[in-house]
């Protein structure tokens, strides 16, 4: 059940208390009244109110003093000060002391409704903010980094130690290993987590586009620059910028980037005003940056500026013990997003996946599972749901015999062990097929 908004009315005039009580009760609020500040404070010691509507001029403690005392008791309460003696000075003072608003008696009925509506909006925003903060806190964002292998444990340990610092990080690893996830995990565990994480895929942009993307541009800076536009560095102020495929940037951009990283100041393209931004840099690459430095294609000074910490994300083939966990994770993820009942994977299919080399790493595994869920119709992912075609070579294949065995088994499975159809597909006669099945000890 929705919690009723509670209002405490503090006024020495009985008629005012009665009127407001009646008005707010009719609106469905929980209302209590106090005839002076002392009584209000005593009520507030045992009860919490969302909104406190207090008169300014009261015998004994006045509304402003009460306001200060309430702020020490419950800083989240919204206080609205009302008075018949309105002056700009008292209004300003009340607001400076933390009052939400200030109204003059008598109110227009519409003003009162607006006032309370605004106050309740403020309350729900504050509650929403609190909930979101708690959710972000609990996210930790390492939840997508699945695995129990030593290799992934080492990555998680490194993320944990580097996250709270402000140091630049280079994440290396093959394509599809989850470098962006590592960057997200670092950001989500850093002190900058409430600020943006801005990603830039450097490899996808030409030099001039990347320049405008990173630094922003002023209106008219080039053809098509119809508006002023903030750059990614500006957007990442107080947060983190993630530069993916950093090895692809040109020599000119390397110089520009180095200067920005050193000064944290830059100008928009076509602009003449220096902009400063406080951001942390995380980069990722699947190339050997050190080798590029040695060859002279990547600036050494930029390399050392970026490479304060290096986290290497291992390829999937080096952490095969994580594959079953990842498969389970992706099955849950896609069954949920596709509104399908949760399915499992048959052991043979899982064995086939584990034996595969995964040149595309986790991305390839993820796509494989997504596809299997889309094309499969049963309660289990079976071999035929997996995209292992003729051109797929099993990693366990080390000889021609092994290859022939695996290939025949694949075609047999494809035709549900129908010997005639399999023999026809393999362009051999049935006897030859029987002999091969016997030779390799194949079983359905």
């Amino acid at each position, binding site marked *: 059940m929705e919690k009723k908004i509670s209002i405490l009315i503090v006024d020495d005039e009985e008629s*005012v208390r009665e009127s407001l009580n009646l*008005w707010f009760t*009719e609106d*469905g609020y929980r209302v209590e009244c106090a005839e002076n500040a002392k009584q209000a404070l005593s009520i507030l010691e045992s009860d919490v109110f969302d909104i406190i509507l207090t008169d300014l001029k009261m015998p004994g403690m006045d509304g402003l003093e009460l306001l200060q005392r309430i702020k020490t008791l419950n800083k989240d309460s919204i206080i609205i000060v009302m008075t018949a003696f309105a002056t700009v000075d008292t209004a300003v003072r009340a607001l400076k002391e933390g009052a939400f608003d200030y109204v003059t*008696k*008598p*109110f*227009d009925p*519409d003003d009162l*409704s607006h006032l309370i509506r605004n106050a309740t909006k403020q309350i729900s925003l504050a509650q929403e903010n609190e909930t979101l903060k708690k959710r972000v806190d609990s996210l930790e964002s390492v939840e997508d980094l699945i695995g129990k292998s030593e290799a992934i444990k080492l990555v998680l340990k490194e993320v944990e130690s580097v996250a709270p610092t402000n140091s630049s990080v280079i994440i290396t690893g093959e394509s599809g290993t989850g470098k962006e996830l590592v960057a997200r995990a670092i950001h989500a565990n850093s002190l900058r987590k409430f600020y943006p994480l801005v990603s830039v895929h450097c490899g996808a942009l030409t030099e001039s586009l990347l320049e405008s993307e990173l630094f922003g541009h002023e209106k008219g800076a080039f053809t098509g620059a119809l508006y002023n536009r903030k750059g990614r560095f500006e957007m990442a102020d107080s947060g983190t910028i993630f530069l993916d495929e950093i090895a692809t940037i040109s020599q000119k951009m390397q110089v520009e980037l180095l200067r920005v990283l050193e000064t944290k100041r830059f100008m928009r393209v076509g602009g003449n005003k220096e902009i400063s931004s406080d951001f942390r840099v995380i980069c990722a690459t699947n190339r050997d940056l050190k080798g590029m430095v040695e060859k002279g294609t990547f600036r050494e000074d930029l390399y050392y500026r970026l490479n304060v910490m290096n986290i290497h994300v291992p390829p999937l083939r080096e952490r095969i013990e994580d594959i079953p966990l990842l498969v389970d994770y992706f099955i849950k993820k896609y069954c949920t997003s596709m509104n399908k009942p949760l399915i499992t994977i048959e052991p043979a299919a899982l064995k086939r996946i584990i034996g595969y080399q995964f040149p595309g790493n986790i991305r390839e595994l993820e796509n494989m599972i997504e596809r299997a869920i889309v094309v499969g119709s049963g309660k289990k992912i079976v071999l035929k749901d997996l995209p292992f075609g003729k051109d797929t070579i099993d990693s366990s294949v080390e000889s021609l015999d092994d290859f022939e065995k695996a290939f025949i088994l694949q075609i047999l499975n494809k035709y549900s062990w129908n010997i005639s159809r399999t023999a026809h597909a393999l362009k051999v006669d049935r006897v030859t097929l029987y002999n091969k099945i016997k030779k390799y000890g194949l079983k359905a």
Partner: protein
Amino acid sequence: MNAPAITILSFGRFERGFLEKISEVVMQEYNCTVTIKEAHVDISEYYDPVRRQYNGNKLLNEVASLNIAGNSKTIGLFSVDLFIPILTFIFGQAQLGGRSAIASQYRLSNERYGMPVDENLLLQRFAKEVIHELGHTLGLIHCHTPTCVMRSSTYVEDIDQKEAQLCAKCRDELIKI
């Protein structure tokens, strides 16, 4: 709940047959008996010369003190401008879940806003206001449904937006009460 007996207590001067029409609408909405009575009370003592309006709180207390026997709900109807100390004006007010309510037609007529006289519109507005205040005496609070008669109205335009009936939710609520 049992159908309430309602008394309309006239404190003002109304057009002939006006209150009878109001009582018919109220009778239909609440499915109850409605009696019209004249209140022979001098309301001048409730006049505030500074605000040049009548004190709604005091008039509500006056209606409650008349203690109309044999009736569960009484609404005093006025043709003067009503206020409560904290608000510049009110169309009416009621004891939530109590026995008494008041309402005034003063701010409901078109001519007060420089518009042509429209007796039918005045009747509709006043009927809605009477049903609304009686709803409070029956324990209903303001409703957020735009067309429900229990929706809070600050201006006559707000009254025109709603209908002279309770929404399904308020009707259910009334049964529970």
